[in-house]
């Protein structure tokens, strides 16, 4: 009985040591408590929820809620004080900064790559061709210099951050063809393209691997390096925004996103981290 208690004491002690060692950047949260509400861009959600989980596990007195809604909602909520951090997938407009007094923190680059089956000879397209493909004007690979055969279109669901970037940067206002098959994750997209020789779809740049082939757009090859350097055009920055300079829990949260573990979370979500103060 005694030895069991001793053993459990030792176990708890070891656990405490282990968690305090592994969680050095989390130390900022040790004496904090309260609630932080985060709202806005959907692409941010995986990063925000993972960070929130880490922080709340470290210090259960802190409550962090993460909601979606899109960039517009993010600006509105943080501006009206309904959320501590409002996320946007686009830079703030001057009018928004002026109206609400917002401070912005870019923390990640979200790049989207057009992808085809590795055996498909078409490895480069122009922006106009992409629009023609996705609006249904071009329906056969032979019109693009590939093997004859119908183009199988794949896309993402409404509200997907990947779809938003792809649409904003490449398609513009073009109406989508009704024949676009919809999958609901980067993983499902990869599976669909990897199996279908006549497929075309798009994934977050971090998800490109040997099972699918990235397509260069106007000569710009999709890769993490090119996205980071600004050479690849289908990218956007992801921003956190606060009303005035952040303090307390909000400031600590933003610092955590910029920390080493924060960068890891960003990479795991398929984005490229931006160091603090850059840009």
């Amino acid at each position, binding site marked *: 009985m005694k030895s069991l208690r001793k053993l459990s004491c030792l176990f708890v002690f070891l656990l405490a040591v282990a968690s305090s060692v592994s969680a050095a950047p989390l130390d900022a949260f040790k004496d904090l408590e309260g609630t932080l509400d985060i709202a806005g861009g*959907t692409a941010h*959600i995986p990063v925000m929820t993972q960070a929130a989980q880490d922080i709340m596990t470290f210090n259960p007195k802190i409550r962090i809620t993460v*909601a*979606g*809604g*899109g960039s517009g*909602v993010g600006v509105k909520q943080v501006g009206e004080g309904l959320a501590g951090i409002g996320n946007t997938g686009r830079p703030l407009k001057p009018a928004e900064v002026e109206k609400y007094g917002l401070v912005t923190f870019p923390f990640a680059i979200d790049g989207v790559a057009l992808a085809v089956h590795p055996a498909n000879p078409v490895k480069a397209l122009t922006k106009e061709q992409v629009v023609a493909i996705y609006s249904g004007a071009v329906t056969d690979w032979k019109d693009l210099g590939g093997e004859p055969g*119908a183009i*199988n279109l794949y896309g993402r*669901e*409404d*509200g*997907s951050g990947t779809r938003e970037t792809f649409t904003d940067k490449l398609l513009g206002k073009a*109406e989508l063809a*009704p*024949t*676009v*098959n*919809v*999958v*609901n994750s980067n993983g*499902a997209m990869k*599976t*669909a393209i990897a*199996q*279908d020789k006549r*497929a075309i779809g798009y994934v977050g740049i971090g998800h490109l691997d040997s099972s699918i082939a990235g397509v260069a757009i106007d000569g710009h090859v999709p890769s993490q390096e090119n996205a980071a350097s600004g050479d690849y055009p289908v990218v956007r920055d992801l921003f956190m925004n606060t009303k005035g300079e952040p303090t307390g829990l909000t400031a600590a949260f933003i610092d955590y996103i910029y920390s080493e573990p924060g960068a890891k979370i960003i990479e795991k979500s398929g984005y490229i981290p931006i160091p603090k103060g850059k840009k």
Partner: protein
Amino acid sequence: MSLTGRKPSEGARGPLLLRALALSVSGLLGTVIAFILLSGVEALVRGQGLGLLGAAWNPAGGKFGILTMIQCSLLLAFSSLCLGWFLSLGCCCALNGLAPRWAARGLLGLLTMMTAVPTVVYGFAAVFLLVPLIRDALGGTGFCWLTAGLLLALQGVPTMTFVMDGAVRSLAAETRLTATALGLSPVQHLSRVVLPLASRSLLSAAVLGLGRAVGDALLPTMLAGNAIRFAHSPLDSMRTLTAHISLVLSSDIGGGEHLSLLLAGALLLTFCAVFSLLARRLSQRARGARL
């Protein structure tokens, strides 16, 4: 004495407890149903009337019509039900004397195993096996009505077979002696006596199968392609109401999209309720005609 003395009190207590349980459970169920239906009605009111029931889905243009998905849901459910119901009927007959005993035993084992297979396994296997097969053999992307319909039929077979088998087995046992005495062969016995008597169970198996087919979200999401349009051929990509709910839910947005989900939920519930009421009416009529 003691037996007669105890019986009434026990008899009164049992039903009371049961009645209380039944009341609370049906109250709970009723609340859920009322909530879903009210949300649907609210969605209709807030979503500018019939705009949500239109054919156009274009969130950027403020159009959130789910008519295409209603059509696709019904098409997929009824087609897979037709296929699955006949397969189940076949399985049920095979289990009850049409197949040699060893084959029946094997089939029973297979069906029992199939009830334990999670839907996602069917879906995953189909993505890698059936989808490429259909794509190469018949064209299109392989993610289509046909693929999803086949798999939905398959996943419904064990449940429907067991519902049918339960009734058929006991009816067959009851009537076997008489039928044999009248000189009916086992096949005649099954087809002329047992199946007509079991019509009610055959129908309720169909309703059960239909409910599952219309309500399954995973297989259509994984296999039907999810393109938003009316399906005209079995090779067309389609999005069902359930797939629509799971796709839009994954990105948590308010506004018209959200309202369309509420309406889709209410419609799914209404479909299932109407089917089962219809089936009940039909089976009552069938029983009445026989008596």
